[in-house]
């Protein structure tokens, strides 16, 4: 029972390089999210998706792009990495069940990204 799986787990990038973080969930959840975690700031929402083919901006979207071509996958891209994007990135998913939400979000293990 994998839940939410993120790849890679660790990555070091040079400033200006690009990369894609992959999130996969096997729970058939409608909603998926990308958060970044920085010390003392908790987690902040980067982008999210309420269904296949849809994406929307969160609190801190600048410098990131996302795509959700398949329901089970949510990709986070950094086009030109900057040191300010050094962070731990978490993907999460949650279900929508009829008129009552299943409001629990399930999180992946995180990707620790360092931009030098």
């Amino acid at each position, binding site marked *: 029972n994998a839940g939410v799986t993120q790849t890679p787990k660790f990555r070091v990038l040079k400033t200006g390089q690009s990369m894609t973080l992959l999130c996969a969930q096997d729970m058939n959840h409608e909603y998926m999210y990308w958060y970044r975690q920085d010390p003392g700031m908790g*987690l902040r*929402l980067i982008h999210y998706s309420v269904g296949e083919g849809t994406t929307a901006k969160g609190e801190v979207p600048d410098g990131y792009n996302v795509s959700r071509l398949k329901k089970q996958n949510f990709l986070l891209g950094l086009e030109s990495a900057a040191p300010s994007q050094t962070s731990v990135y978490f993907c999460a998913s949650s279900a929508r069940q009829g008129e009552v939400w299943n409001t629990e979000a399930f999180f992946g293990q995180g990707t620790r990204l360092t931009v030098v």
Partner: protein
Amino acid sequence: AQSVTQLDSQVPVFEEAPVELRCNYSSSVSVYLFWYVQYPNQGLQLLLKYLSGSTLVKGINGFEAEFNKSQTSFHLRKPSVHISDTAEYFCAVSDQGWMAAGNKLTFGGGTRVLVKP
């Protein structure tokens, strides 16, 4: 807009002592409330949630939290902690009713709990 404030960034506590982690929030709409725990080098795991009904909510691992609407607080408590409770704890809120917009969470800054023997 919403915001969540966790009043203590670190809480040292001795094993078998009680602990309380404080959380206050502000929001212009009704919210759902959550506490998540993050063990070292792991993702977040839900401890408990308040959706409606009784203001005292019980969660996993002996934790409980009380919702106080007038004080806009959702403090987390455990009467007797174990070494294994050493972790970071996050309070979070999400809007009620934003079904089309997804269950987006706004987090507090986190409280590190260090349980000492």
